């Protein structure tokens, strides 16, 4: 018998009046998974996280944690902890007291609290910062404190709401690696909300892509990236070219939209012709915008290859395997 999923949504909807923040969501998150909820703002991914944490209650449907129904359970009775987008550190408490807060609530003794909080701070490389106030820390440090505060309670599921959103690029990349390493070491479930597809792809075991309150696709990063099931996923995850069903039918005989990665397009040889409408130098490559009989395409030309001028007519082609036909998706 398979282990119970860490989080199980069954036909969950959350409506705010006429607004359907989450609609008919059925989703399993396995134990020990690093799971990303990816989508643009307003897509329902944060509501989904808040439903797991218990800050929101479903309008309909049920949520189970490790096989136990948690639909009506208040946040303080759930074996999950959250790292908030704004970190939500308590400004009146020292870093150590912030981390030890949950332990204090749980009634642990002062000595045990200090020891565990110290260990948690060591784990996020903030040993020695315990006496400071949150206001005296940098953004990255606060983020680590929030992490330590959530982890010190040894939750079975850790929820992270855009945890890296407020950090600058370099720090973000560093923290991505650290979070991933941490998750591997602890072996617990991480559920992680982001609108950054790169972050989702590089860190997660599985990704759920959200749009307009509904899950568009659930799958591994490779699957979501290479084999998007809907045009939205193709466009949102890695900015693929979406070819209209008619064009795909002409090329492959199958009448469904197709996705084609910009880097898969080769310029100079091939059946198709297109006009260059714009080009932009990106450093390691040049992005070329093309107009092929009214279908807009984007191609990435690696450094060292010839780049056509704007207005030039070019031939283009691709490895047939690179074209992914999104069966079941409409237009």
């Amino acid at each position, binding site marked *: 018998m398979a282990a119970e999923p860490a989080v199980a949504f069954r036909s969950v909807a959350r409506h705010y009046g006429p607004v359907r923040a989450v609609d008919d969501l059925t989703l399993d998150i396995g134990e020990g998974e690093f799971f990303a909820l990816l989508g643009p703002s307003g897509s329902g991914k944060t509501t989904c996280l808040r439903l797991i*944490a*218990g*800050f929101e209650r479903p309008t309909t449907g049920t949520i189970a944690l490790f096989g136990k129904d948690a639909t009506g359970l*208040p*946040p*303080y009775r759930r074996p*999950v*902890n*959250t790292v*908030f*987008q*704004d970190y*939500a*550190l*308590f*400004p*009146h408490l020292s870093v150590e007291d912030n981390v030890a*807060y*949950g332990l*204090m*609530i*749980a009634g642990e003794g002062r000595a045990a609290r200090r020891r565990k909080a110290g260990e948690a701070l060591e784990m996020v490389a903030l040993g020695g910062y315990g006496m400071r106030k949150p206001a005296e820390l940098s953004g990255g440090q606060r983020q680590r404190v929030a992490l330590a*505060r*959530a982890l010190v*309670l040894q939750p079975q599921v850790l929820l992270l709401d855009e945890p890296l959103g407020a950090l600058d690029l370099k720090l973000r990349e560093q923290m991505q690696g650290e979070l991933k390493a941490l998750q591997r070491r602890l072996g617990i479930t991480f559920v992680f909300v982001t609108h950054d597809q790169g972050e989702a792809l590089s860190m997660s075991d599985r990704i759920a892509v959200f749009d307009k309150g509904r899950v568009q696709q659930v799958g591994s990063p490779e699957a979501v990236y290479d084999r998007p099931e809907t045009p939205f996923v193709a466009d949102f995850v890695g900015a693929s070219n979406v070819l209209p069903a008619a064009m795909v039918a002409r090329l492959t005989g199958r009448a469904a939209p197709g996705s084609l990665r910009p880097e898969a397009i080769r310029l100079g040889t091939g059946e198709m012709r297109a006009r260059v409408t714009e080009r932009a130098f990106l450093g390691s490559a040049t992005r070329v915008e093309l107009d092929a009989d009214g279908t807009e395409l984007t191609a990435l030309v690696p450094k060292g290859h010839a780049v056509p001028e704007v207005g030039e007519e070019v031939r283009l082609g691709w490895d047939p395997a690179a074209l992914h036909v999104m069966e079941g998706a409409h237009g």
Partner: protein
Amino acid sequence: MAEARASDLFWRRPRLLLALLLAPPLLWLGIVYLGSLFALLAQSFFSIDEFSGLVTYELTLKTYGELFRASNLDIIVRTILMSAAVTVAAAIVAFPIAYYAARYARGPWKAVFYLGIMLPLWSSYLVKVYSWKLILAKEGILGWIFAKLHLTWLLDAWLALPGVGGKSLSVSWTGTFLVFLYVWLPYMILPVQAALERVPPSMLEASADLGARPGQTLRSVILPLALPGIVAGSIFTFSLTMGDYIIPQIVGTSARMIGQAVYQFQGTAGNIPLAAAFAVVPILVMAVYLTVARRMGAFDAL
């Protein structure tokens, strides 16, 4: 032309503009406020001549010694107790109102809240106090309500208590307390509400997320974060109660509070030094209060 030149000058010398803008209020504060404070302090170090009743202009601490006479000490203790009681009660009453306003009231309800809080401040202070006298009178509205509810025995039992009781609410310390509480309540609600408004909702979710039940969140997060607001409000309620001389004159047992003593000594008795010494008491009490509040970390979350 001249205006343009002035603008250019201020652009090049921004501090000049700042100085020009700040000078009048600073002069006002410095000369009028500190000046009068100093004059007050100076007066308190003079004394009144026992025989002629004239003020002797020689520096002495004798007048401060007078404060420790039993009847004067009564006034001070009575006033501080009343101020403390009013402040504590105001904090207790104000907190749920402020919490509701900060967390739940939205749109028109917020406007209703502000109107409800501010409206009493628009009407004359004296009108409010006189109407409370009618509410609290022996044959007044409150007595009538108690009678209608068949609770007159409760009111009588309370009025029979020594200290807080009296012949009717209007002539008891309870009455004075109720009027103070009503009149100063907005000064507690508004700062507490402002402090609670600044607490992000995620802070409360974080606390619940870390296992705290609502009561624990209230104690460990909301109250500490509201504390600067409560302290700010208590500065108002405490000092306003200590300085007031109208309310205890209209409602209560006629026993004096500091404000009345100051008013009476400086006027009736011509004992300006003693009046000044009395007026210094609230300043000292507030200084001590603020120091203690600071030590206890009331301003840490600022």
